[in-house]
């Protein structure tokens, strides 16, 4: 058990910190949440800055254009950028954390050279077309059909909860290529250009009032066969490579942010007198322990990933990610429940930062695998309980 950083890790942290100190004051003001073209431009510019400074695709393997950084270095990157108040990955999320690593792991040389460099430079934005109206937690039930027609597929169907669809150039699409095969077996992974004829994007308004994601309708969209990753009907396995990244260190920066929010909550409560309420005070104290534990759990998972036999992909075992996500998503909701207690009647003011965050926190126990699905995973794959029906 060693929590100290190596000399290399310390150097990495200091170099990054110095660069952030230099670059952050030069950034333009962050665009409004509703200004999608503005957000796209802002997120692309930040990714370009990271790229030019050598921080793009930090955790990607070197042969995919990444920096081949260790999982610990990636963790340091997430912590330092969060501490410094740097922009979030934003619209580059799917490209950098899902589509990119999948292409790096499963793509041909041509596919890698076509798609990976623009992701790293921030030139092209990706979105994810997995879920459907009838395929949420049960992803393998998806119905969007891709029919082979010469050297292209004709894709028809609809996708749901597609983040950043409005500003994306590409969509990593999971489709059914063999309707006769059972569930998982007849699926394929395709890269679909979002400007292809037949693609219609309809923004979905979330309960927070924002349009963070969209419904995507596909009407006889032509996708070249060369845009398929992996073999035909092998899309489920290809996709699972992606999903294991999703539950890895993706939330490390957010835990740091939550710990700072907690400190701010305590100060605000002290100022407005709510601190005198022992029940609230003790809730904040317990959350302090919870977020500290989540931060340590991330470090444990990263240590496991770094020294696992197949390290270097920057991922952690999906099951460890499930344990983390289960606790984190609920702790985040508890944090903003406590924030509402601190704010009192002001918590009903939708213009308040903590009220907006309270609303958005409601998605955490649903997105990227509901808490119920995560519990199934923990029960069956970690604890070895019999498969439920």
């Amino acid at each position, binding site marked *: *058990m*060693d929590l100290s*950083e190596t000399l290399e890790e310390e150097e990495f942290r200091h170099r990054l910190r110095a660069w952030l100190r230099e670059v952050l004051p030069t950034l333009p003001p*962050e665009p409004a*949440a509703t200004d999608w073209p503005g*957000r796209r431009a802002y997120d692309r510019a930040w990714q370009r800055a990271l790229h030019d400074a050598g921080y793009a695709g930090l955790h990607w393997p070197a042969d995919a254009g990444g920096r081949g950084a260790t999982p610990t270095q990636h963790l340091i990157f997430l912590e330092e950028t969060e501490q410094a*108040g740097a922009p*979030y*990955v*934003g619209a580059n999320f*799917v490209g950098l*954390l899902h589509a990119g690593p999948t292409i790096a792991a499963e793509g041909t040389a041509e596919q890698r050279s076509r798609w990976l460099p623009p992701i790293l430079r921030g030139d092209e934005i990706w979105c*994810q077309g997995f879920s459907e109206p009838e395929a949420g937690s049960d992803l393998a039930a998806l119905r969007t059909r891709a029919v082979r027609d010469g050297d292209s597929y004709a894709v028809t169907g609809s996708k749901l909860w*597609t*983040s950043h669809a409005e500003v994306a150039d590409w969509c990593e699409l999971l489709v059914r290529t063999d309707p006769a095969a059972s569930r998982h077996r007849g699926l394929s992974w395709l890269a679909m250009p979002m400007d292809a004829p037949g693609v219609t994007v309809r923004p979905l308004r979330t309960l927070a009032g924002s349009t*963070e994601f969209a419904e995507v309708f596909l009407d006889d969209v032509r996708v070249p066969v060369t845009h398929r990753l992996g073999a035909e009907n092998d899309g489920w396995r290809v996709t699972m490579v992606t999903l294991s990244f999703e539950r890895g260190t993706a939330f490390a920066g957010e835990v740091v*942010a939550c*710990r*700072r929010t907690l*400190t701010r*909550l*305590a*100060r605000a409560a*002290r100022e407005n007198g709510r601190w005198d309420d022992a029940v609230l*005070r*003790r809730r*904040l*104290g*317990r959350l*302090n*322990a*919870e977020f*500290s*534990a989540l931060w*340590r*759990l991330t*470090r444990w998972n*990263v*240590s*496991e990933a770094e020294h696992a036999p197949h390290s270097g992909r920057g991922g952690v075992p999906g099951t460890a990610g499930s*344990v983390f996500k*289960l*606790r984190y998503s609920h702790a985040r909701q508890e944090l903003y429940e406590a924030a509402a207690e601190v704010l009192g009647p002001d918590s009903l003011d939708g213009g308040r*930062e903590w009220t*907006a*965050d309270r609303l*958005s926190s409601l*998605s*955490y126990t649903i*997105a*990227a695998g509901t808490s*119920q699905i995560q*519990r*199934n995973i923990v*029960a*069956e794959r970690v*604890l*070895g*309980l019999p498969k*439920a029906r």
Partner: protein
Amino acid sequence: MDFRLTGDQRALQAGMRELLAARFPRERLRALVDGDARTAARPGRELWTALGDAGLFALRLPERDGGAGLGLPEAVLLFEEAGRALLPGPLATTHLAAGLVPGAAEGRRIVTGLDRPGVVAHLAGADAVLLLDGATARALTPGEGNGPDALGATPLRSVDPATPLHRVRDFPPPLGGSSLEVTADASRLHREATLLTAAQQLGSARRTVEMAVEHARHRFQFGRPVGAFQAVQHLCADMHVRAELARVSVYAASVTGDPAEIAGAKLLADSAAIRNASDCLQVYGGLGFTWEVDVHLHLKRAWIHAGEWQSVAEGEEFLANMLLMSGPSETPSDVLAGGLGGDNVAL
């Protein structure tokens, strides 16, 4: 950074598990709890000496003083094993008394302890008592009326049959003739007692997950194992999550020794031990309510440990106050960072 256990640490952990399997198998525990309550009052000299011989108490003493020269992380791993096996006795205080009270390091003296008037475990069977109420630790040792009797304690009927309890109404005056100052920082000893108790809670919390899973796999109802029902699975999954967060907290606190991390570790380990034992009881159903199944022993021991050194309320209050004292000052970028644009939720 490599937070994982080293090979030596894993070997130490395995060694302790083997030792306990040989010296304190389940039959010994059952004999303690199924027998006459009065015979259970003493953890047993022979067991204590065996633990001393194995180095449990002298673990952190320098090698020149007959110790193993190891640190808190190693101690925590051994105490986790003790908690897992429900090993009775004042383990943490005897461990802390090594080097302070003669004979404690070798397991020839049984040393209990407490930090305020209230309830104390294993007083009747103890040779000495550590008092951690002030800045400097004190030890009540036998001879000239200075022993545990000086506390004037009265027995109470302990909820845990393997942990006899006494109620202490008053401490002897700080610098009286009946007390003996030992040259040790009481606040350090207090923190370490808190952490080692948390480690025992962790061991219990992880054990009850195993017990619940084991039962859920083999108990059939409606023609299938009850563990195939999601209602039961989710109970078990939540138990595992609780135990995991307690585990990384206890391990990290043992590495850093940070007071806030120790407080958090105790808080989470207490909750994990109590709630996991309760949930385990639920998974066992009617059997869980019986004396013959060990679940209630985990729950009762967890209740006792939860009241030792740091109560839930104290831990939460301490950690709340730490929020006001630490943390970076707020900058304008903090406000931006918390905004809506920061939520990268992929669906």
